[in-house]
């Protein structure tokens, strides 16, 4: 390893008295103080990068944000998940559990669906592998980061909760339209 000797900076007399630097520092802080004071009266055009006022102001997540995983339906309100269990397989913390079932009727090509689909959000590590593994584009990590519950059981997201969070996403392929 190369050694580099850093010389102690030589302070000038003015600096050694500290008086000017102290005043400089005081001016800096008071500048910020009045900056925020000013912004308080004109919040919309605020010029200072004030800390986000969390519950009122919220972060605008980017599209690639990895929040809680959720299931989506296609534009016809049909569940896209076919219970192939690839996400369950790939899930590193084994947070996903699926109970597959078969449709009772044969009105289209759909044969399999998840009877129960549970994600244990206390295990989930938000890695997004499920979204990556899904062959049907049925599971997505949505912009949902505020999971607060008072009961441990509520952290197990069931199918209803997952579809509620996921909503509808346009499907271009519509594999199951064919008879």
């Amino acid at each position, binding site marked *: 390893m190369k050694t580099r000797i850093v010389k102690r900076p030589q302070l000038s007399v003015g600096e050694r008295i500290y008086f000017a630097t102290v005043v400089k520092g005081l001016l800096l802080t008071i500048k910020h103080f009045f900056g925020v004071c000013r912004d308080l009266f004109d919040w919309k055009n605020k010029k200072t990068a004030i800390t986000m006022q969390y519950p009122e102001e919220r972060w605008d997540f980017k599209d690639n944000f990895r929040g809680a995983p959720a299931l989506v339906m296609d534009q016809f309100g049909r569940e896209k998940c*076919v*219970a*192939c*269990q*690839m996400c*369950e*397989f790939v899930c590193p913390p084994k947070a996903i559990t699926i109970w*597959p*079932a*078969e449709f009772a009727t*044969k009105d289209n*090509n759909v*044969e*399999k669906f998840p009877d129960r689909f549970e994600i244990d959000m206390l295990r989930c590590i938000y890695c997004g592998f499920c979204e990556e593994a899904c*062959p*049907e584009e049925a599971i997505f990590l949505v912009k949902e980061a505020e999971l607060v519950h008072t009961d441990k059981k509520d952290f197990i997201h069931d199918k209803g909760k997952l579809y509620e969070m996921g909503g509808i996403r346009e499907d271009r392929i519509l594999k199951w339209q*064919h*008879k």
Partner: protein
Amino acid sequence: MSGTVNVTVDGKQVAVPGGLNLIEAARYAGKSVPHYCYHPRLSVAGNCRICLVEIQGQGKLQIACNTRVTEGMSYFTDNERVRKAREGIMELLLINHPLDCPICDQAGECKLQEYAVEHGSGITRYAFEKVRKPKNVSWGDKVVFDSERCILCTRCVRFLDEVAGTPEVGLDMRGEKCTLVVKGDGKLTSPYQMNVIDLCPVGALTSRDFRFKSRVWFMHFTDTVCTSCARGCNVTVGSRGDRVLRMVPRANPDVNHNWMCDHGRLHYAFVNDETRLTVPRVAGKGAPYAAAIARAKAILEGARGQGILAVASPFMTNEELFAMKELLDRLGVEDRFFLKPMGEGDDLLVHPEKCPNARGAALLGFAEAAAEWPSKEYGALLHFAPHEGADLPEEALKRAKRRILFSLKEREADVCFPLTTWIEKDGTVVSAGDRLQRLTKGITFEPTLVTERTVLDRLHASLDASHRPPDTAAQALARLAAALPAFAGVTWTRIGPLGMKLEATGAPA
């Protein structure tokens, strides 16, 4: 066609038995030739064309399954020409494939998937609408057919024709409309029909029973033996979460080849029965094993003067029967019986004895129960209730003052121990033809369950402090082999995964 012939596979010289086809001969050189329609136990159809190899001196590629080795033959299984041909075949097979893998039960053990990765090009050049064929067609209550996935290899046709002896399936239509059809009302009738599911190299034929229960990669597989009849077909049990999900045959040329009957395959529901007994019951109340064993000890000791009736079950392993024999010897019990459930057999695999180890029970000195039970009154009954089939007649049960039962379900008894099923323990059974085969533990139904051998040994140890019970099934078998001449020289490893013949019993082969 005897003797050996010398062939050269991919430049490697090997001597192989004469009369082999090129797929089998390539195995001697450590090469595998891909194949869909070829099956060693079925006639050659030669219609999938994936096994093309280049034989030196022949201009065109030949199918390996229908070509036999000749002296001095040299062929290539993996050169540029062969690879290109395979890639072409794969592309052709996948043109109309529906890509159902996410919902296909075959996924994970599908030859199409495997060969597509190994030999496929990875892309399709076919830009047109795929051919649509019937999907999710029911072939009776056991088999589901999907025509779009079918590659028309005709393995199922040949199996039902040649092995099961019920030619029910055939090809209908031609070209892109070609599909499999079942004779008559479209339902299969063969008692061996589910073997076509295993035979099907793709997901065209899937099991109704196993349908969507689990992806194969989640399952835990255990090589064991079917206990539905005395045949002892070698099977692989697939389980997940300590519940049995399916059974498929495991190749054993001396017992079941590659097949098994549908009855045996579907006969596992009692294992997963959630109402099973999981803790011992003493006088109808749940009790820890220690308390139940203490109560059983008191009953047996109290009944010594009045006689004890011991009834074993032919579902018990040899090691359990031996542990029981040691206990009975200690107690001086003379009346030792077992009940043998009988049924119908057939020429192929199904054996009339509907239990795995009746022969073993007989070898260990238990008498097959006669129709007439001794009219004697007993002080106590030690009884292993069979999983199924006729149980002890009620009057025989009543003849004993106190009853110690081993049962799958709760029964009225002074002490009722839970039984464990064949997939929950290691052990050996004597199958038809005096063939000793191994059972392997695959699941733990409930962590609280203690196997019968351990219960018997603990009961024995409580009566006789000098009893040093064996720990593992292999140790128990060694003890048994040392004690009984019929089992002389038998060890756990000698039995091996495919079982061995018990020579010392003198039974016909």
